[in-house]
């Protein structure tokens, strides 16, 4: 017998659950939100939700995976348009400089992301998963810097590993401040960007 439930239907259900979950998390916080609430918000029964996801952690991980996949596609597309490593790194800073971190929806998602990140410190499995994601992001910068060093465009004296980590550390540090509405996000990030680019440039 052919399966009664099509893949397309399953995907539709999954997306519905994920969208509702993200809204609930942003509104109430990751740890206070219950599967029941996600059920009520999405109009999908708790039992059905468990057919698609084992746990709340699993739901957020899927959200994170999808977002990371989208970012990956976006970055690859934009990187292919840019020739130099230097302009690629500069472009990545600009991605963050052109968005509005105080816009309520984004601000809510930012909070959930860090709530989940800190939540991961309590589970070995979650910590491994989030570290894999971190390593992927770090390698993206590291490879770009190394290519730039090969062609003499990036300062050969910088430690690419350290600078790759530093890129994301800066973004995390700046993003964490955005819960304070008077934080001068653009001034701080622009200055950090200039400082970073100045160091990686081959003189």
């Amino acid at each position: 017998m052919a399966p009664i439930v099509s893949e397309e239907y399953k995907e539709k259900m999954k997306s519905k659950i994920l969208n509702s979950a993200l809204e609930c998390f942003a509104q109430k916080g990751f740890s206070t939100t219950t599967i029941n609430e996600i059920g009520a918000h999405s109009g999908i029964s708790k039992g059905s939700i468990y057919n698609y996801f084992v746990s709340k952690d699993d739901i957020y991980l899927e959200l994170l995976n999808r977002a990371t996949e989208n970012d990956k596609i976006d970055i690859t597309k934009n990187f292919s348009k840019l020739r130099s490593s230097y302009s690629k790194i500069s472009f990545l800073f600009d991605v963050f400089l052109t968005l509005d971190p105080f816009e309520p929806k984004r601000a809510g998602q930012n909070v959930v992301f860090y709530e989940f990140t800190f939540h991961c410190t309590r589970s070995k499995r979650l910590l491994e998963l989030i570290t894999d994601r971190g390593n992927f992001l770090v390698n993206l910068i590291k490879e770009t810097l190394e290519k730039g060093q090969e062609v003499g465009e990036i300062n050969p004296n910088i430690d690419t590993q350290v600078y790759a980590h530093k890129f994301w550390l800066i973004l995390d540090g700046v993003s964490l401040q955005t819960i304070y509405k008077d934080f001068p996000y653009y001034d701080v990030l622009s200055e950090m960007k200039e400082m970073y680019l100045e160091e990686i440039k081959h003189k």
Partner: protein
Amino acid sequence: MSFAKNEHKQEQRNKVLISALECFASKGYDAATMDDIVLHSSVSKGSIYKLFKSKEEIYIELMYKYTDEFFEEINLILAKYTTAREKLSSLFIEYLNGQFDSYKLNSFLVHFELQLYSTRKEQMLKLLEERRLKRLGIISKVISEGIQNGELKQTHDADVYAEMFWAFFDGAIETKLVFPNFPYEKLVIEQRDVFIKNLANN
């Protein structure tokens, strides 16, 4: 008589706060219950409620405790040095690259989570905003003094650089907590060099 009573009260308060910190750090604020704190502190539930109205009040008290201890530590380091360069450098090296015991790591974790939690609690966010301004003021003052005495470049905005300092600081602590395998110490030293080089007059 009443002195001894007060001392006992203070001791119990501390016991509860230290236990609460451990419970919040190991389970998360939402998942940790008053019963967990009772069990961990061996202070009865009735006594805890005489000291604190609610779990949230304990959370807020922990925030005060953490920030007070933090400011004290930072000021102690700063007081040892005279130049802006030494002061800034020592915060990177002595503080960020210093030893963190489990009490401190737990405090960092709980304080980060409390800040995120406060985004849905207006009153709490207000308390944190005061502390944030105080934190900015400390670095801003060091940089302004350095600019005034010609040690640091006049072209830089002390407030923006103070914000940059703390943004890096928080990013570093987050890295330390979440990614223990990342090259944390190297990152701190590197940033210290670049930060000071950018600020200083040669």
